[in-house]
């Protein structure tokens, strides 16, 4: 029989080997000789930290008690891993691009970098992992106890567990907190864990082979034995089967230590591809001998033997001490690797999300020195490791180390599973919000604690036996293991159902009822579209060479400037040929130079991306957005100026058109004037010529010819007077003789002047004398001239035998409107404005003798008198309206 001392010595030697392997790996990593350390095999073996003492000892115990049930714990992870492309790949990619350090970090980062959420997840992870750590301590204690049985040693389980906890804490502190690696990878620990993974697999398979071929007499006999000895079940597929498979699939993702090895310690995505089949294979091999060992144990060992220890007790019973020692080392490896990785993961979470924020808040609010932060982080991690192991030890002592291994493990699984809804939401649901995640996780966590964690103490911690039996204050409705009166026989299924159902429900409802902050939305984009982003991110990623930087600089600064800049640095570094080495000075200069071209924030992001192996931070994005806003503003100003220019150009175009029109009008005017002057001049010249050349003319002829000459010269004079008058009126140089008068006076004077013409044409003028006595202050002669013009025109252009003219006066808004409505042919609408043009005559005007200046002059007179003359629409005849201000 192996003595306790021998086993202790083996343990110490084994731990020394682990220390050596870890130290060697750390050294190689520091020297950048990663080689084997960077292989998918080491990655896969490190994932096998999933197989803890619970697997090594507990599976056999579970198989002996419940038959096939133990398989669910390995089928769940198998399903998750064979479907890696759909979930784990995204998780790993997010972890790598966002430089995630723990599951709390991931959840917090996605939900707007919420520290509250990180604290909740951290506390939950610590609480959820505590039973698991206790489980490892228990299994190690039990395995040690096997060797102290019957001896005189006074070592109690509590003391053994204490020593183990202290030893594990020392190893973890030594290798888990050596450095603050930017990406939190621990090559030493991972290599040691990989070695332990090999040891536990080899040990279990060795025991299995021994049992099948050495004890039971071959596979056929073993199968018969299994059928005879293992518990019979009516069916394999039960609600518990589904629940456990689901729970284990969740645990492989949510357990802090699994997240640590799968996501944080992942150095290449293709390693995950290998692990997708290699890890299920590892699990397969770990399980294949579990049932034979259980059946054989039940067969050969005395009634009442603890089935959790069959792996150890069968070789001992068969006097195979070496095999027993190997089995012991397998169990030892399983337990220690789990505790080490869990302690590292939890201490990272505790120090990053709880200790550091508190320290920054209380001690160093302003500008902490980076060395100070480093010291605080390392120290807090070391203390956290000790505290976490302390909690595990406390749980072990409180539960009395009596509960079966499997049930403790399931309590832990369910605890950490509460992160699942928020985690899936983080990767796939855009509307998931921070408040939703906090409420969901908290709800799930409280229900888990109430229905599973606290009852696991069996009434010795917080919840008493009576509360477990009858509910708090005797309220049956709230019984921890029959919540809301729903009696689900299996406490585990009960706890899984209520905690995850209410967790998911609260998460969904609260997320839909609340909205996310801008930072959350930025993060949502980064998480959900991680594949699209990492494709861009890769191009400027890790391993940047001076050549890459040079190409980047050429693109931004231009070939010549980039060349000159790099030359300066090459010479500074004493390298006359080739490109300079990348150093801070070069990067700062480049960033400064880039900033001139692309803006400071973009330049910073480019340089950070090129050399920093990290995604753009939110601060960078915000700065880029600020610059974009400035550019947009500048662009808006340009657009405004451009619009103004267009407007000015249009105005100029209109003015130019007007000038061109005016110039054309001037030409028309001159041509019209010449034409109008030419007609009388021709008559005068002809008749004066006759008078001069013909001396035989009779007195009658002489009078006739000189009469024509006289008439034509008068007409000429009148025309010239009119033109001169119009010119004075248009230029505003006309002198007005305003005086007090009445409309009646002016109108009468006009009618008297036209009396003869009217009589000749047999015309009838009707004056509506309602407002005819209105007082006016105006130039009587000029206004009269306008009236005469309108009356004459009405009579002159009438085609009726009895031309009629109706003059109406109506006061309106301080003005007097005098309307002249005749019964003539009227004025077509399109000619109503043209008639006021100089020398214009209506197209249908017949018998006109005027030159076409009358209306133009009249309109100018009215303008000068402060009134207006317009032509109005009329159904019968022409209608003119004179508007004149009342005194």
């Amino acid at each position, binding site marked *: 029989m192996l003595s306790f001392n021998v086993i202790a010595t083996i343990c110490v030697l084994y731990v020394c080997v682990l220390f050596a392997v870890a130290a060697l790996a750390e050294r190689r990593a520091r020297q950048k000789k990663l080689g084997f350390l960077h292989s998918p095999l080491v990655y896969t073996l490190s994932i096998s930290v999933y197989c803890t003492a619970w697997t090594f000892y507990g599976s056999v115990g579970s198989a002996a008690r419940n038959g096939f049930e133990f398989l669910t714990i390995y089928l769940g992870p198998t399903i998750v891993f064979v*479907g890696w492309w*759909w979930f784990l790949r995204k998780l790993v990619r997010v972890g790598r691009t966002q430089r995630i350090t723990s599951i709390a970090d991931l959840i917090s980062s996605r939900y707007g970098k919420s520290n509250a959420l990180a604290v909740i997840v951290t506390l939950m992870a610590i609480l959820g992992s505590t039973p698991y750590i206790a489980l490892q301590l228990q299994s190690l204690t039990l395995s040690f106890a096997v060797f102290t049985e019957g001896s005189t040693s006074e070592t109690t389980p509590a003391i053994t567990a204490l020593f183990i906890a202290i030893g594990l804490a020392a190893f973890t502190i030594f290798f888990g907190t050596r450095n603050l690696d930017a990406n939190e990878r621990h090559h030493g620990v991972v290599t040691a864990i990989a070695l332990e993974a090999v040891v536990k697999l080899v040990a279990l398979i060795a025991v299995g082979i021994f049992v099948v071929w050495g004890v039971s007499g071959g596979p056929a006999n073993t199968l018969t034995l299994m059928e005879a000895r293992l518990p019979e079940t*009516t069916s*394999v597929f039960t609600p518990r089967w589904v629940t456990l498979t689901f729970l284990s699939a969740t645990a492989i993702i949510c357990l802090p230590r699994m997240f640590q090895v799968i996501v944080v310690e992942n150095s290449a995505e293709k390693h*995950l591809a290998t692990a997708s089949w290699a890890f299920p294979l590892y699990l397969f091999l770990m399980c294949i001998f579990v049932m034979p060992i259980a059946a054989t144990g039940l067969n050969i060992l005395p009634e009442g033997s603890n089935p959790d220890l069959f792996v150890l007790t069968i070789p001992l019973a068969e006097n195979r001490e070496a095999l027993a020692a190997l089995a012991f080392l397998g169990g030892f490896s399983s337990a220690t690797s789990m505790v080490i990785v869990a302690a590292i993961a939890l201490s990272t979470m505790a120090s990053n999300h709880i200790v550091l924020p508190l320290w920054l808040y209380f001690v160093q609010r302003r500008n902490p020195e980076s060395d100070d932060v480093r010291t605080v982080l390392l120290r807090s991690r070391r203390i956290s490791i000790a505290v976490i192991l302390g909690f595990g030890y406390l749980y072990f002592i409180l539960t009395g180390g009596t509960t079966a291994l499997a049930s403790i493990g399931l309590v832990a699984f369910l605890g950490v599973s509460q992160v699942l809804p928020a985690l899936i939401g983080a990767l796939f649901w855009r509307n998931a919000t921070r408040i939703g995640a906090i409420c969901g996780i908290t709800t799930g966590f409280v229900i888990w604690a109430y229905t599973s964690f606290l009852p696991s103490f069996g009434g010795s911690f917080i919840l008493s036996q009576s509360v477990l039996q009858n509910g708090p204050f005797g309220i049956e409705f709230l019984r921890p293991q029959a919540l809301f009166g729903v009696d689900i026989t299996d406490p585990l299924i009960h706890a899984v159902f209520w905690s995850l159902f209410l967790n998911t429900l609260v998460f969904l409802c609260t997320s839909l009822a609340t909205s996310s902050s801008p930072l959350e939305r930025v993060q949502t984009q980064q998480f959900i579209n991680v594949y699209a982003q990492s494709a861009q991110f890769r191009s400027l990623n890790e391993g940047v060479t001076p050549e890459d930087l040079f190409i980047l600089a050429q693109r931004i600064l231009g070939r010549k400037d980039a060349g000159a800049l790099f030359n300066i640095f090459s010479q500074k570094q004493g390298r006359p040929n080739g490109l300079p080495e990348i150093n801070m000075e070069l990067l700062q200069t480049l960033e400064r130079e880039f900033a001139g071209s692309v803006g400071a924030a973009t330049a910073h992001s480019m340089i950070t991306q090129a050399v920093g192996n990290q995604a753009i931070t939110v601060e960078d994005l915000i700065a880029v957005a600020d610059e974009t806003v400035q550019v947009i503003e500048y662009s808006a100003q340009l657009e405004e100026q451009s619009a103004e220019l267009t407007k000015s150009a249009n105005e100029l175009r209109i003015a130019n058109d007007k000038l061109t029109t005016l110039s054309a009008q001037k030409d028309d005017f001159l041509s019209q004037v010449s034409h109008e002057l030419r007609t009388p001049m021709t008559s005068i010249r002809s008749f004066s010529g006759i008078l001069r050349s013909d001396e035989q003319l009779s007195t009658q002829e002489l009078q006739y010819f000189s009469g024509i000459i006289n008439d034509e010269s008068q007409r000429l004079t009148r025309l010239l007077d009119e033109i001169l008058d119009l010119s004075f009126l248009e230029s505003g140089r006309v002198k007005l003789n305003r005086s007090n008068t009445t409309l009646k006076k002016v109108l009468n004077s006009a009618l008297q002047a036209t009396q003869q013409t009217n009589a000749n044409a047999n015309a009838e003028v009707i004056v509506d004398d309602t407002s005819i006595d209105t007082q006016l202050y105006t130039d009587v002669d000029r206004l009269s001239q306008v009236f005469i013009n309108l009356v004459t025109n009405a009579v002159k252009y009438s085609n009726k035998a009895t031309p009629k003219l109706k003059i109406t006066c109506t006061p309106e808004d301080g003005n007097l409107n005098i309307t002249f409505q005749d019964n003539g042919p009227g004025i077509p609408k399109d000619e109503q404005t043209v008639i006021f043009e100089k020398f214009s005559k209506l197209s249908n005007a017949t018998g006109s003798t005027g030159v076409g200046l009358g209306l133009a002059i009249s309109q100018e007179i009215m303008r000068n008198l402060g009134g207006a003359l317009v032509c109005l629409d009329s159904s019968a005849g022409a209608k003119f309206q004179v508007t004149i201000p009342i005194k």
Partner: protein
Amino acid sequence: MNDNPIAQRDLSRRKQRKRTELSFGIPVIAVCLLVSPLLNGFTTESGGTNFSGVIVYIFGIWGALILAAFLMSRLLNSDTVDD
């Protein structure tokens, strides 16, 4: 044969899509075979569970899944992003 690079790229994308869709099938089949009443259908006989049947069924499917995942990982490996 189509030498058009755009058509070739489309073809390769279609193949890649098929590969990823195929990879989705493995976990779905795993769930259907291992976590569904099918399990009882294959492993129950009159009077209780067919013990060796369960063992062969579960471990057989498990092995097949590992093999499928192995083949799939070789197909998908080219689509992973690594530094």
